[in-house]
């Protein structure tokens, strides 16, 4: 796999919109061509090379291309947006929309990422060593098709609204989460290894949520069913299984109503 390295050389005024930082765009391009790719500061179109020193080389396809960003890109939006294959490694913090709408490939963010990362994701792996912002793996505004596939793994904490309108895939949070987890969820899996505040599984139709720590305030529409011993993301334990949201519509399968499932670890 060919590796190309971007080292930030200056901090943008306002924020930098850099949806071109993606293996799909970089593949098959020379360093010089990559330096000429546009980035936007507000309405001004500038060159990627104005903000990054570029070294290494790209592969001929996205799948053969690894992009390594060495440095702070906490004012750079859209890294790895819509990527289909290949790899992006971010050695620093990044701004909003990291891996938004990605369909394949891998992003390894070794720092933290801001809001809307993994938005509308349908495939691939997004791994975040630091913290994630709000709306991680959520749906774009108005869309009923949120995250549909792939895996998001966060070692630190995540913000509010993770997995809103989730339809498939997996989100794993090592730390704590803010309010609204899996709201309107209709498939997929969310695992919170730390604590949750409130509004977990609100308006949930289907899918699985696991919480290892505490939930500060439970939603009133979840009903305790039974205790189960299961393995979740490599952790074995005893969980209380709740079903809900009883206030929401639910489909039927073989005559039986299918609810969302909320597992709370003992």
């Amino acid at each position, binding site marked *: 796999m060919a590796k190309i390295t971007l080292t930030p050389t200056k901090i943008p*005024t*306002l*924020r930098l*919109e850099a949806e071109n930082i993606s293996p799909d765009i970089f593949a098959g391009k020379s360093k010089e061509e990559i330096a000429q790719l546009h980035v*936007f*500061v*507000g*309405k*001004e179109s500038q060159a990627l090379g104005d903000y990054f020193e570029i070294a290494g080389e790209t592969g001929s396809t996205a799948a053969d291309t690894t992009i390594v960003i060495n440095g702070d890109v906490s004012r750079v939006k859209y890294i790895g947006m819509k990527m289909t294959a290949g790899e992006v490694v971010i050695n620093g913090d990044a701004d*909003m929309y990291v891996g938004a709408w990605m369909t394949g490939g891998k992003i390894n963010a070794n720092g933290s990422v801001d*809001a*809307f990362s993994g938005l509308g994701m349908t495939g691939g792996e997004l791994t975040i060593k630091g913290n994630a912002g*709000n*709306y991680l793996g959520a749906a*774009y*505004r*108005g869309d*009923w098709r949120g995250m549909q596939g792939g895996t998001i793994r966060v070692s630190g904490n995540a913000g509010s609204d993770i997995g809103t*309108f989730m339809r498939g895939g997996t989100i794993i949070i090592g730390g704590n989460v803010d*309010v*609204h987890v899996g*709201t*309107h969820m209709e498939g997929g899996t969310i695992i919170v290894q730390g604590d949750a505040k*409130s*509004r977990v599984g*609100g*308006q949930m139709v289907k899918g699985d949520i696991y919480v290892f720590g505490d939930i500060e*305030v*439970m*939603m*009133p*529409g979840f*009903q305790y069913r039974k205790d189960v011993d299961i393995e979740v993301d490599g952790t074995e334990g005893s969980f209380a299984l709740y079903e809900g*949201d*009883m*206030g*929401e519509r639910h489909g039927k399968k073989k005559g039986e109503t299918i609810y969302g499932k909320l597992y709370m670890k003992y």
Partner: protein
Amino acid sequence: MSRSLMRLHSLRRSAYRQVGNLAKIVTDVVCPFCGTLCDDLEVALDDSGEKILEVYNACAIGATKFLHSQAEDRLTRPQMKQEDGSWKEVTYDEAAEYTAHMLVDAKKPLMYGWSSTSCSAQSVGSELGEEVGACMDNTATVCHGSTLIAVQDVGVPSATLGEIANRADRVVFWGCNPAHAHPRHMSRYSIFPRGFFTGKGSKSRKMVVVDPRRTDTAKMADIHLQLEQGRDYELLSAIRVAIRGEKLPETVAGIPAETIYEVADTLKSGRFSVIFFGMGVTHSLGKNHNIDIAISVTRDLNDYTKAAIIPMRGHYNVTGSGQVWGWQFGFPYCIDLSRGFARYNPGDSSSNDLLIRDEVDAAFVLGSDPGAHFPVGSVRKIAQLPSVCIDPHITPTSAVSKLHVPVAFVGVEVGGCAYRMDNVPIETRKVVEPPEGMLTDEEFLTMVLKRVKEIKGAA
């Protein structure tokens, strides 16, 4: 045209009557204060027709708005802030010149406000925003923006206010206090009117208020749910659970389960239920989700009876701003035009996030007062940027801006279309002339747009 039609037309044109031989009364005046957009005001003018003497039928706030427009100490010309902090009068031409250059020079200007003005001014503003690649946002961003997001997520079964007056027999005020914020709402539309199917007025209606305070509105209610602040989402969820006849915990949000079942039954048993909601839910934890689930309650109720939900919109034409942008750009607020096409994502393209995250480099404010109504951290950012405030009043925003452009009062000194909280468009009326030489929003924006095109053409 038939004579009868002509008569109706002429009625519209001369909507005033003469009282005695002194005052002239202008009738069917539309109040440019809140989203209730009362259109039955009568304004008495002096003999010359230049001065407002009295305002009839308006609430205290609406009356004040008309009368204050007459204030002797009113600013009538633009003012530019000097190095030493003092203000210097400038011409409208100079003001347009500064504004045009500020907008063209900025990489990402914020153009905020747009709520206390007419749709035609908003439309000129859209073209200007498009020319300069602005982020366009209106006061919904601190008012019912949460509602707009929720509507995008789950829709909104709604109705015009006349449907409520004529049909509703269950009226819920959730997180709103019309007694203070929309003073004539209950008498015109929601509680007291004797409508077509509601001939007994308030006696034919059950009133439910949900508020953590015992507000003046709550004091009038049949049922007041004094919930724990910030737990609206849980309580609304519980109502959904109760509507479906499922089991509830003993208390939710501090309200006993039996009361929740009772409220659910009250709503289900009506012929027509309506939920009005306000900033109590849009501003509290969860924001859009609180409305989302309130809408879901309404949706559920339609399986049992007829139900509608209506936001208590604040500014008299914030709704219109969202409409104009909707048909021009496809989004009601938080619109980022910087890339030449419209993008939308509150949280990213919203005024307070843009300001706090240092994403904009100029601030243009028209028809609203973020200085008074944004968290102070955001106001501080406006103060640091090149900035223009277009507003008839002296406000905290004008105080921190570099340029203040006073303009005529829409709905008092110039007419134009405004949209009521239920999206009904009403033409506001000009009652008196603005002070000599003052421009309207629309005229000033048109000047700026022309100048922007010249500057861009030359560049």
